[in-house]
């Protein structure tokens, strides 16, 4: 167990590799209650969401979700977020654990001018993620909701483990199909649901998965982690999250700075690296050119259990970011050769 932003969480239950492979080939179950939940509701809820986030929430039908981010006026990240439209005038933002307080204060301060309620529901929910190709089969055993009608990044409500009106989202942080369910956070309910999910998943090989596998899974899928690929000193263009940033929205916090930034060449860009020689690139290791000069740093790096390779995400100057370029990563004092590869490193197979 480790302290993860104030939460006592397991790095692994049975082993990172086994847990990672369970998610890629069958199903894995995560307790992700550490994440936060902010609800905006009222006549101006959409306007508030549009003001504080970079993606275009007006595109969301009721029951639809999108990946987005809250930005500072400089165009850098407060946090990344999944925006769910739960109702006509109701939006749920699911945010990172480490930024719960900061995000809630930010959202509240920056939506004062809008006619909507902003509520911090983080402690009200236990959130359980059921991830992997067999995730849907597990959840079907526990709910009356018509899950086949719920597409990826859509949500529904249904009775889950006997709990009526439970929010079910087809979202996740693993690069696989899967669901996240939001149940009441009291301990008896949480423990009961956790155990029922694992029991229902047993025939599909479901095992509980911890932070270690959560990290290796999201790394293979190139999903950003706050404090690594995105932070308050990195902007949207550098992080390569252009497609989630709708500049055609006339106004949102950070838009002006991002528009200005477009006029200048970028000084760094996020790339994917695959190690060529023996060595594992890890978080914060230096990236060097072949001559040994320091040119950047690794934001996240690890052995990738499904790919059976050592991969990393890193910031380097754009002129050194071409796919196929050879660079080095300084691993424990020595430069180890790596090459720039396309990302994501892993994409889930298309449904047959």
């Amino acid at each position, binding site marked *: 167990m480790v302290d993860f932003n104030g939460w006592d969480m397991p790095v692994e239950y049975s*082993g*990172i590799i086994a847990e990672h492979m369970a998610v890629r080939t069958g199903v894995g179950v995560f307790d992700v209650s550490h994440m936060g939940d902010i609800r905006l509701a009222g006549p101006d809820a959409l306007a508030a969401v549009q003001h504080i986030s970079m993606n275009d929430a007006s595109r969301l039908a009721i029951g639809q979700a999108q990946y987005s981010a809250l930005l500072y006026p400089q165009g850098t990240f407060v946090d990344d977020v999944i925006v769910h439209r739960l109702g006509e005038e109701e939006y749920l933002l699911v945010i990172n654990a480490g930024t719960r307080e900061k995000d809630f204060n930010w959202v509240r301060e920056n939506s004062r001018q809008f006619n909507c309620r902003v509520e911090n529901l983080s402690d009200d929910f236990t959130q359980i993620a059921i991830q992997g190709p067999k995730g849907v089969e597990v959840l079907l055993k526990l709910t009356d909701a018509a899950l086949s009608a719920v597409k990826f990044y859509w949500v529904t409500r249904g009775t889950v483990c006997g709990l009526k009106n439970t929010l079910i989202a087809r979202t996740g942080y693993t690069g696989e199909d899967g669901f996240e369910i939001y149940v009441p956070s009291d301990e008896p309910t949480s423990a009961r649901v956790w155990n029922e999910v694992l029991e229902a998943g047993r025939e599909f090989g479901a095992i509980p998965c911890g932070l*270690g596998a959560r990290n290796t899974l999201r790394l293979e899928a190139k999903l950003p982690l706050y404090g690594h690929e995105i932070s308050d000193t990195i902007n949207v263009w550098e992080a390569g999250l252009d497609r989630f940033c709708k500049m055609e929205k006339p106004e949102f916090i950070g838009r002006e700075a991002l528009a200005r930034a477009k006029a200048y060449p970028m000084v760094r860009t996020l790339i994917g690296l695959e190690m060529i020689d023996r060595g594992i690139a890890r978080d914060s290791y230096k990236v060097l050119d072949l001559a040994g000069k320091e040119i950047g740093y690794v934001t996240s790096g690890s*052995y990738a*259990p499904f790919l059976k390779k050592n991969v990393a995400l890193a910031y380097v100057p754009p002129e050194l970011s071409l796919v196929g370029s050879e660079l080095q990563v300084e691993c*424990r004092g020595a430069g180890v050769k790596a090459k720039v590869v396309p990302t994501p490193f892993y994409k889930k197979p298309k449904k047959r």
Partner: protein
Amino acid sequence: MSYPADFKYTKEHEWIKPDGATAAIGITSYAQESLGDIVFVDLPKPGTEITAGKTFGSVESVKAVSDLYAPASGTVTEVNGELATAPEKINKDAHGSWMVKIKLKNPDELKSLLSPADYEKFVSEEGGH
């Protein structure tokens, strides 16, 4: 957990098995369990001099990097090549997976190392599983 009787142990969780003038070195079962899935081992080449108490290589799991500390001084005579391609063998059988063999420089150094019973006591005090 039983620790082989013919090994000696260090507080850094290495074991050493003397065999006359040479000795085999590896990491203990407690170490592999703490590390988790081992995915990489960095070991010195034959001919390298290693010094008791100093690092001679490293072992990496998915989540962590750990230095290897020499239990005794000597010259590396053999390196276990299997571990380059199958480091997970250490997780399966830590006490059976030697990493390097050395020609002992000063066999007396072994006297100050931990016996199996002392090591077991040390591990349980460390709050081991």
